[in-house]
């Protein structure tokens, strides 16, 4: 049995496919941020981080958009950190 607080093990294809559909949203901005993070950052999360990402996807589009675009700040510091982390991972680096 996996340690729920530690290394969550490799991400299964089915888990990724399921999450990919949950990243399909009503706003293009959210599509880019959530799908982009799924491709580039999700695998690096520990077990609680993955659970937190799944919980984040349950929020309404408008609320997610407000958080990502800095119109409001999530009350929960864990969510706040995750939102910041997603933006940092997805934002392109310009040379």
């Amino acid at each position, binding site marked *: 049995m996996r340690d729920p607080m530690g290394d969550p093990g490799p991400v299964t294809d089915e888990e990724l496919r399921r999450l*990919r559909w949950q990243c*399909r949203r009503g706003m293009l901005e959210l599509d880019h941020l959530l799908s982009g993070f799924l491709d580039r950052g999700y695998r690096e999360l520990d077990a609680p981080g993955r659970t937190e990402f799944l919980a984040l996807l349950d929020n309404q589009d408008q609320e997610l958009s407000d958080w990502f675009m800095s119109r409001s700040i999530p009350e929960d510091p864990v969510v706040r950190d995750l939102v910041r982390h997603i933006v940092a991972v997805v934002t392109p680096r310009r040379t």
Partner: protein
Amino acid sequence: MSIPSRHFDALIIGAGGAGLNAALQLASADVRVAVVSKVFPTRSHTVAAQGGVNAALANVLPDNWHWHMFDTVKGSDYLGDQDAIEFMCREAIPTVYELEHAGVPFSRLDNGKIYQRAFGGQSQDFGGDQAARTCAAADRTGHAILHTLYQQNIRARTHFFDEFFALDLVRDKDGIISGALVLEIETGEPLLIEAKATLLATGGCGQVFRTTSNAHINTGDGCAMALRAGIPLMDMEFYQFHPTGIAGKGMLITEGVRGEGGFLVNKDGERFMERYAPRAKDLASRDVVARSIVTEVKEGRGAGENGDYILLKLDHLGAEVIDKRLPGIRESSRIFAGADPIREPIPVFPTAHYAMGGIPTDRFGRVVVPVGSGSEQVVAGLYAAGECACASVHGANRLGGNSLLDILVFGRLAGKDIIDFVRENPYQRSVDPASLDEAMGRLTRWDQKGSGVPAHQLRAEFRKCMEDHAGVFRTEEIMTEGYQRLCELREQFKDARLTDHSKVFNTARIEALELQNLIDVGLSIAVSALHRKESRGAHSRPDYPNRDDVHWMKHSLYYREADRMDYKPVRTKPLTVESFPPKERVY
């Protein structure tokens, strides 16, 4: 194989504003209604609509529906049907009040009435002073409407099939539409939903273009299903592009940026709009700015590694002005372009935004097709509403605030008409097994193994070709070349294969099914645009720069079979008032 089935009085495909408003009418009248949505309903693209809903409530400035009608006819560049436009502008008022009573938290004036803001294209007294006609719920009107309608549907016991993908319409032996075959995304299993009436409300198709402001879900599914059922699409060449989307991503950068003093430069730092529009410069009309950007890129003056975008400069405005007046733009640019406009320009390119055309309907949301010469008939039991439909209220161009209005009015009216239809047609028709097999074939073809073009590669190539050859820059030469290439890609699609043949949440298979829809709908845009030899509204052709009312004041109808075109007249006679004759559009 045996396919499980469910029976309802009405089936609605799509759970945005149009679908949910129709469903609410039906469920409230105790009609058994099913709503199929490929994503959770409150993740529909309606949630992204910020602007508001036009209705001549006259709460802020004098107004009436007749002025609203005039503005809409003029905005349509006289291609909108005046009976449908009159109907929409009249119905706007009860529609907004109904939403208010349903609980939409519209912004308020001090006197408690609904606040209304002014938008471009709105006038008092038939082209006079600015009107204030747009009702909004702060800057999240779409979200407020979508959530209210969803909650009301839950209360009214609408049956939702969330995360089900509609494969195709099915017919009975007489050819009457009798429901749809859908796919449960979680299990990968098909389900037949039989219904006496079916409403297509699947939204836009912006994903046919590489750069679009539309969400990933907007793949023209309903339009493509209609095409495959032999129904033409109407006025598909009229597609609205916003000149400044974030390059390679598509998010809108509002005109307000240029209004505040931002300007466009090419790779040499030249303010090129001075060449194309010496007076208006960066504030020229949307189509002029969009075409100028594409011309700069085509002629080798684009910026970036691939020279495929233009730069929007704001840094001269200073951090204080940008933070105060354009905070959302700064954040968007930082996140999606990696450019902080306080220090560096935003890479931009025109972005596909809104389809004026779609499945032809009358003002009750009933799908109509031509028969014989000049007349048309209703397709029994089939309805369409919202961006996928064309009741012909936007004509060649849409006014701000009229898109939410369109989905709400015609969703509502389609729902009301379906109530009568199912009462007059109480018996369920049996689905023809041949029709079901055909729909199943669309799914099972992806079970084939072996080598072939990867579907995702074809998708990218198709969307790029649409952008290059059927986007804002439309000459005979460019579009003819593009059409040939699109046909080649359509042929290649027949050999496209998937490597993932799993069933549970096989998103690659859903995307491949969407690709077929993109191809069908993309071709309808490209072919309709190639044939229309004039410039009108959003369809702008440098080789035919003028509007030609003598030859082209007519609606295009594209048929999938042999890419055939047909035409039908514009309905210039309103329901109760005098016609607005075509005039040159001057703002």
